[in-house]
């Protein structure tokens, strides 16, 4: 993470990590629906959800918000939502 703070992280890498963390969170959510007291699953959820939120903030910092949750004032001094590549567009590094 320190490395990311010093240089602009690769957009593709960030998106990939966000995808991995998001999928893990979604899958463990399904498990928790039927096992709400499973501590290991809860730990897994919190760990990956925290990581996902960190990655989303990191992405927003350099490339703009992916979701409205990270569309915070610190991201930019203007509204950049439509300036970012759409999901079907190549992000590139």
């Amino acid at each position, binding site marked *: 993470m320190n490395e990311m703070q010093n240089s602009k992280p690769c957009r593709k890498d960030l998106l990939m990590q966000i995808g991995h963390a998001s999928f893990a969170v979604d*899958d463990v959510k399904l*498990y928790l629906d039927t096992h709400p007291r*499973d501590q290991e699953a809860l730990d897994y959820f919190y760990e990956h959800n925290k990581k996902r939120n960190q990655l989303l903030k990191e992405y927003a910092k350099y490339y703009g918000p992916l979701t409205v949750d990270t569309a915070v004032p610190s991201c930019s001094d203007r509204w950049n939502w439509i300036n970012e590549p759409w999901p079907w567009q190549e992000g590139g590094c």
Partner: protein
Amino acid sequence: MQNCRNNNPYMRRANCGCGNNNNSCNSNSCMANNDGRNPSMAVPVYRERSGCSDRDDALDGMPIAMAYVPWQSWRHIYEAGKGFHRGTIFEELDLPFKGKGGCNV
């Protein structure tokens, strides 16, 4: 249709499964006969010998439309990246799809 039989030991309650407990399930619409007056009507017999019906069925005799799902345990969890690529974080659910099984052997 077979749910109309009330002599099934696997059924939790001795009703007909038709949605009520009155004698309406003795009607012809249910095809089953609860008191054995017409044994030939008790079980629908499928005489077509094609498709799946001509295969040996290890579950022959068991009640139809009954299924089970074993309780899943938290174990053999993939690392997030692998889970993403495999479509599940659970190794136990990472099963090959071969486009066969059932009738498509």
